[in-house]
Structures are given as structure tokens and as C-alpha cells.
């Protein structure tokens, strides 16, 4: 199959990109004036302790040797150890990455299911009340500061209405009495697999506010993007032809027009997805969500380079894979697109 060849080639390229990124982050880590050995040992180190740490971390080796060792461990799937907590990074990621992915994926789903339909209807009924409303919403959504919106939603839905929990991934009751058995690290998925219904609904209630807060920007983007492409597509002759053939407006908009209009929206959503992997820190802080953003921010503040390098690699990997997926989706949607 030709498509497999294409995917394989793109994945090879992705490896090349990852290799480059690992080299760049490694060089930056060694150039920046900070002493990993000092961080490893802690405050008030003795000279002996520092020398021992240097030997343990391999810092006494020539740089090329250090890099090759680093590459070697990467190839074995070993992302290294945090020089601050001395924890294997992979272990931290197993906790933080699924939490972030779950949050971001739910947020993206919201953007898709709120932003795209609103954009379509708004583009189809230009200057209607709905159009004015969703355009206002789009502008508001991209300009509201995240922390302000998060706090506002907490005040409204937690303090005033008491509909939704204020923060965390699950409530203490769930942790104590209905603990979720960790399989994938995605609470919604794990509770679903183990049929832990009380935990599932608890996790669902917990994710609504942070996911929505995170998604507002993407919702705004997808409304605007979808609206403008739909407006263009609705001018096409094949839309008149579809109406002339008696197809109902629902089909015309959400099937015939949307399939022609959705790719630019998916592109901005994909970019926003990758950005949110580490850019969701404000949401994570406000909603006490143990995610990648807070993890990497802490690492940056303490110059914990192995962590920074690992997270950079992970995010890069997501970026390349999502771009590949995007190209595949585009080719699947439009037969005129040639993959090469």
C-alpha cells in the first residue's frame, strides 16, 4: 500500500526531527550557566559531594560522550532522572501526561462540538441574531484572560450554583471509597473500563470546568475559522446544485459544505492542541490539575534540565505525529490532495 509507505517515510522524518531537537536541547542545557551537580546534591554541598554527583551524572565526561550516552538511554526508552527530585522522569510523566491529555482532549472535543456547529450556522445565516451572538462569543473567547474566566466559572458553578466541583481530578470521597484503578492514567477511560460508575461521573464533573476554561480560546478560533471558510464554500456552485436537487439545508451545511470547509479549522485546533500540552499551566494551577504544564514550569524554575529536555521531546513527538494525522485526515477528506 502506498499510504503505508508515506506514513513510514513521515515517521522516519519525525525521528530525524526528534534527533535534532534532542541535540539542540542538550546543547542549550550545557551552555546555560547552571550547575546540575549542585542541584542534585542540594543546598550547602561539600566538594566531595559535588565531585561524586558530577561522576554519577556523567558530567565529568567529554560533551560528545555525554550526548551519546544521553541518546543511548533515550533509545532504550529511558528519559533520565530529575536532578531535583531524583525521580525517574518516565514515572512522573506516567502521572502527568495522561492528566494533561485527558484535559486537553476533552477541551478539544468541546471546541469541535461547540465551535464548529456555531461557526457553520453563523456562516450560513450571516447577520442573523445567532451570527452576531457567535461572533461576539468568538471575540470574547479569544480575548478573555484564562485565569479570570477560570475564577469566574468557579465562583458561578461551585460557590453560587453548587453544580460542579471546584478543583482536582476527582473528589476525596472517590479517592477513599471508589478509587480508580490506574490502567491508562485517563480517569474517564479507566473508570469506564472498570465500570466504576460513581468515579466516572465524579471525574466527568471535575473535568468540565477546567476543560471548558482551557477550550475557550480554541472555541473562539474554531468559530471564526469555520465561519469564514463556510461563507466561502456556500458561494460555490455545487451548493446551489445541491439545493436544486432538493437536499435539505442540514445536509447541505453539515455534510456537503462542512466537508469542504473543515480542514483549516482542524489545522488551528491541532496547533492549539499541541500548545495546550504545556501551555495549560494557568488552568492547571487554578483547578489544581496535576498536569504537564505545572510539571515543566517547576522544572524550568529550578533548571531541572533532564525534565525540560524530556518534556520538549514528548511535545515535539506529539507535534510531528499530529501534523502527520492532520495530513492524513486532509487527504481522506479531499481526494484532490496528493500525499507526497
Amino acid at each position, binding site marked *: 500500500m502506498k499510504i503505508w509507505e508515506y506514513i513510514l517515510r513521515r515517521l522516519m522524518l519525525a525521528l530525524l526531527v526528534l534527533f535534532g531537537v534532542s541535540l539542540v536541547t542538550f546543547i542549550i542545557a550545557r551552555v546555560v550557566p547552571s550547575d546540575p551537580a549542585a542541584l542534585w546534591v542540594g543546598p550547602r554541598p561539600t566538594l566531595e559531594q559535588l565531585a561524586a554527583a558530577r561522576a554519577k551524572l556523567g558530567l565529568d565526561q567529554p560533551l560528545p560522550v555525554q550526548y551519546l550516552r544521553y541518546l543511548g538511554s533515550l533509545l532504550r526508552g529511558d528519559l533520565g532522572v530529575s536532578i531535583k527530585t531524583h525521580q525517574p522522569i518516565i514515572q512522573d510523566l506516567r502521572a502527568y501526561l495522561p492528566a494533561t491529555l485527558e484535559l486537553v482532549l476533552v477541551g478539544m472535543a468541546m471546541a469541535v462540538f461547540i465551535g464548529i456547529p456555531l461557526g457553520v450556522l453563523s456562516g450560513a445565516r450571516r447577520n442573523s441574531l445567532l451570527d452576531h451572538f457567535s461572533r461576539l462569543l468568538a471575540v470574547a473567547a479569544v480575548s478573555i484572560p484564562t485565569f479570570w474566566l477560570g475564577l469566574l466559572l468557579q465562583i458561578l458553578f461551585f460557590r453560587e450554583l453548587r453544580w460542579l466541583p471546584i478543583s482536582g481530578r476527582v473528589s476525596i470521597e472517590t479517592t477513599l471509597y471508589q478509587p480508580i484503578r490506574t490502567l491508562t492514567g485517563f480517569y474517564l477511560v479507566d473508570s469506564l473500563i472498570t465500570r466504576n460508575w460513581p468515579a466516572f461521573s465524579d471525574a466527568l464533573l471535575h473535568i468540565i470546568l477546567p476543560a471548558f476554561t482551557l477550550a475557550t480560546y480554541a472555541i473562539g478560533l474554531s468559530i471564526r475559522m469555520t465561519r469564514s471558510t463556510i461563507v466561502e464554500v456556500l458561494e460555490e456552485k455545487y451548493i446551489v446544485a445541491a439545493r436544486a436537487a*432538493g437536499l435539505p439545508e442540514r445536509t447541505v451545511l453539515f455534510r456537503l459544505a462542512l466537508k469542504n470547509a473543515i480542514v483549516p479549522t482542524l489545522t488551528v485546533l491541532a496547533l492549539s492542541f499541541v500548545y495546550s500540552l504545556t501551555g495549560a499551566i494557568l488552568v492547571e494551577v487554578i483547578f489544581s490539575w496535576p498536569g504537564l504544564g505545572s510539571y515543566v514550569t517547576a522544572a524550568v524554575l529550578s533548571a531541572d534540565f533532564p525534565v525540560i529536555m524530556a518534556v520538549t521531546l514528548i511535545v515535539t513527538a506529539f507535534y510531528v505525529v499530529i501534523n502527520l494525522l492532520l495530513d492524513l485526515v486532509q487527504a481522506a477528506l479531499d481526494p484532490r490532495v496528493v500525499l507526497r
Partner: protein
Amino acid sequence: MREPLISVRDLRVQFHTYAGVVNALNGVSFDLYPGEVFGLVGETGCGKSVTGLALLQLIPPPGEIVGGQILYCGQDLRTLPPAQMRSLRGGKIAMVFQDPAAALNPVFTVGEQMEMVIRQHRRVSRRDARRQAAEMLRAVGMPDPLRILNAYPHELSGGMQQRVMIAIALSSGAEVLVADEPTTALDVTIQAQILDLLVSLKKERGIAILLITHNLGVVAETCDRVGVLYAGSVMEMGPTTAIFREMKHPYTQGLLAAIPHAERRGRFLSAIPGSVPSGLQIPPGCPFHPRCAFAWDECRNEIPSLLPVDEGHWVACHLYGRGRR
């Protein structure tokens, strides 16, 4: 005489643009009988496409039908509820367009597009819809229907695309086909094939075709009757032979005199001085009078009505109205 399938009476369409009100149709009347090809001719901008779209109630905003009737089986389509109008579209009255490459959705296969339309009008399974689609493709002269069903529009030639459009239009049993310049975008040899197809569909299925064109050669070859449109009004209407042999209206005479030029220069009407009035400012009286060699006072002040001069032959011109009174 047979009953007309569609009767258009005094149809008026306006576009409300920033520049002002565009009077696209100013009282157009004609009948369309089952099993005939009725040609609508006129220069670009005279209101042919608008007439076709009006039959399907698909005038795009800022346009609006502001007067007249479109009777189909005795019902005025203007007052039909939207849901009923929708089932007429494609179900009874269908339309094909000038540029088939643009009128087919690029991201769906021919089969998907045909199935969608067929299943919109008939309660059939996907498999039956596909079978009907293949039959319809065969009926419009496509050699390998099963392959075509799986093809995307861009994989087909222009002539095949137009055949597919016609197949989609007729796949749900339409009795009326509005064909808006169906061959203008095609090569000359392909044009003839598509016109032959339309004529054979008329003969074999008794379909009524409103053939919109600016090409008098096309009219002569395919139409049973013709209406000549100028600035949103019918100037002359009658059997094709009568129009070509005994044209009455000075505008029709100008059109026909221009035919040799048309073949040479790819456009017609070079023989008539002046240019088509804009819908923003239709001249008072006969809209053609500023370009007419015979115009006199009456032509400048009074709109001539469409009056019969012969069996089935009608003319809107004071030259003929006067003699009859």
C-alpha cells in the same frame, strides 16, 4: 392543446443591492409543455439564469420574487410551504448548470452524490439507490457506470461531468429540467453530444426542458419553441421555425443578423448598436427602444404587451400592436 406543466405569469424579480434596486425580471410569462424543449435566449445579464432559479425558488439573496406566479400542476410555487418546495426540487423540477466541474461537489464520489439525492426523494436502501444511480448513469450514456460511481468529479472529463449532473438531476423522476447554459463550458464536439442527450431524454421520457442559452445555433438544433429575453422581459416567443423564418421583433432580427459574427468572434449581437441596459435603470417604455432603429414616441413611453401575431407566435413590439388594434 395539451396542458402546460409549468406556467410562468408576469414574473418579477428584484435584487436589492447597495447600488439600488436591480430589476432583473420585469413581468416574464411563458409556458412549458411536457415533452418539449423551450429555449430561453438573450444576451448576458438579460435574466435567463434568474428565470431558471426562480422556477426552483432558489433566487439568492439579496434577490427576491416580487410579483407574478409560477404555476406547476395548478399550484403557485411561490406560496408552497418550504418542505413541499424542497421535495419538488430534484423530485419534479431539476436543474443543471453551466460549469459541471463547479456544480459537482469535489470531495464526494459520484456515487455518494447520487445516492444522497436519490435517498432524499425515495425511501430506498443504499444498495437500491446505488443500483438506480448506475441505471441512471447508463441512461445518460455513460459507458462504465460502476467505475463512474466510485470516481470523484475531477477524475472525469467535462462531458462526463455534465452527463453525471444530468443523471443526478433526473435520478429522482423529475419531469422538468432547467438546463442553464449546459454546454457553454464544453468543447464543441462534446456540446453536440450533450444536446443530443437532452433531446433524446425529452423524446424517451417526455421530460420538459427549459434550455437556457445565449447561443442561437443551440436553439436552432434543439428547441421546439423559443422565448427571446431582453432586459428581463420577453420580446418574442414562438415555435423555433417561426422565430428563425419570420422573426418580428427588431431585437430578434438583430440577434439573428449577428449569427455569422457569433461564429467568427465567439460572441453575438455585434450587429445591434448600443449595449444592454443595466437592471438598475431599465429604460421606460420598450426596454429595447434606445437601440431600436424603428422606435417612435409610443416606444419611449408605453411598455408593449406580448400579443399574438400568428398561431403560437407572440411579439412585444408596438410595430405589431398598432396594426392589430
